């Protein structure tokens, strides 16, 4: 496995208080990696730290072999990393089209029209809503706008913070299917997910975080089969 992103000994938080401590992980190229764990384990903080939205207190982050620790978010997007936050993931007063357009400003793709077309093929629901304010869309559609906006810069690594939070089961399935399509397009995905069982089913690798530290890791199938992980984080029972 070639690691696209390597995190070593990462300690970070807000102000001087660490939320995650000494975290290590490798994200394989063209893979879906899922971070699971109980509430307050620091999953979102880990994602935000990779995207330079917290204070790093120690450790390193490398992307494609290059040290990116301490770089600003606005310089990470041009390097090929995009992210969508968990809530407030669209600009509500901007139209869907404008939301997508914003995604190209920090890192313009070589052919904007072509990229946009590819994204609309991925999310056909958005095509008829391009002129509508994003604030009027449903939760699932907003998630699509958010992912579309992040994909407009043609990133190599996509960070997703709970992409299925608050979505109906029908949409949840669709989002997971879309993630597989995005991976097929050659984009690496690192995501935090509450729906751990379903997420591990589509994931190539998973990491379990507990109280801000690495607890377990393995392929999706390994974690699903792990008794300890299953009992503590997947609601027990047979996988």
């Amino acid at each position, binding site marked *: 496995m070639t690691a696209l992103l390597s995190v070593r000994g990462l300690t970070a938080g807000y102000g001087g208080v660490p939320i995650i401590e000494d975290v290590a992980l490798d994200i394989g190229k063209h893979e879906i990696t899922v971070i699971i764990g109980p509430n307050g384990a620091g999953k979102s903080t880990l994602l935000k730290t990779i*995207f330079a*939205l917290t204070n790093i207190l120690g450790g390193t982050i490398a992307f494609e072999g290059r040290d990116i620790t301490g770089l600003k*978010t*606005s310089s*990470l*997007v*041009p390097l090929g990393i*995009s*992210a*969508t*936050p968990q809530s*407030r*993931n*669209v*600009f*509500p*007063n*901007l139209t869907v089209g*404008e939301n997508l*357009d*914003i*995604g190209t*400003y*920090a*890192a313009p793709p070589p052919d904007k029209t072509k990229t946009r077309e590819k994204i609309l093929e991925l999310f056909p629901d958005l095509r008829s809503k391009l002129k509508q304010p994003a604030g009027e869309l449903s939760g699932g559609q907003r998630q699509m706008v958010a992912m579309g*906006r*992040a994909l407009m*810069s043609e990133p190599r690594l996509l960070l997703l913070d709970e992409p299925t939070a608050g979505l109906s089961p029908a949409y949840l399935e669709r989002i997971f299917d879309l993630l597989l399509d995005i991976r097929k397009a050659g984009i690496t995905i690192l995501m935090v997910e509450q729906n751990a069982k379903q997420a591990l089913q589509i994931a190539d690798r998973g990491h379990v975080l507990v109280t801000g530290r690495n607890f377990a890791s393995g392929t999706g199938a390994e974690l699903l089969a792990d008794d300890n992980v299953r009992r503590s984080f997947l609601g027990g029972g047979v996988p």
Partner: protein
Amino acid sequence: MIDFINYYFIPALAIGSVYALGAVGISMIFGILRFAHFAHGDLMTVGAYGVLAALAVIPLPPLLLLPFGIALAIAAALLVDRIFYKPLRNLPTIYVVISSFGVALIFRSLLQLVWGSENQVFVSGVRPPLVLLDTFRISVLHVEAIILTAIIAVLLHYFLSRTRTGRSMRAVADDAELAAISGLDTETVVRWTWIIGATLAATAGVFAGLDTSAHPNLGWNLLLPMFAAAILGGIGKPMGAMAGGLIIGLAEELSSYNWIGDSALISPSYKTAVAFVIMVILLIFRPQGLFKGRLL
């Protein structure tokens, strides 16, 4: 009816244009930097004095010297942002609001120091009014103010909806954190907010000064109706602020028309109170303004 148009309606649109230009800046600064900029009126005054200064050297019609006033206002705005506002950006809003009060006093005192506190006239002598069809007698300045404001409104709308910088500004106003996550450079957006806000403030200041005279309190005296206009239009909605300015201007001026009987409905000396009444009623019953802006 002719009197109504000549002496109430057109002057109301002209003063409304001044409010509109000032309110746009207040609304954008609130939307993007998230604070009530109390030095905005004085920024208008700075713009007016910039034109006065240029007029002392270049004897041209004051409106042609507007670029000098705009340049001075932009320089002043960027400078105070760098020194007084930026260091307070991550603290609770009240710090930067109080700071802007201080900046307002600094602007006013500096102008007093250089030009003195007496009224300064841009052009002496009376400019004959524009006479149309023998009945309409309209001040040329008022026509200029209304037309220029209309042009600015169209340009601003185009800028905010079509250009990359304009869309970035709306994105930051919508959700600053998501804008940062999207990789937008918020400091560039902040800089553009000041540039546009100061440009429109200086334009408004020159019109206000030309209508009467320039004095160090010129903009400060207009601050509250402009805030009323910004709230009326919905905070963070520049086009709303434009409409709000016109509505406040109309409400103020038309309140002293003799709607019932022969005397003014409300004595002209109370007309500023009209703006305040509108503002208070709005804050109680519709704090998001007419165009669904952000809550204060």
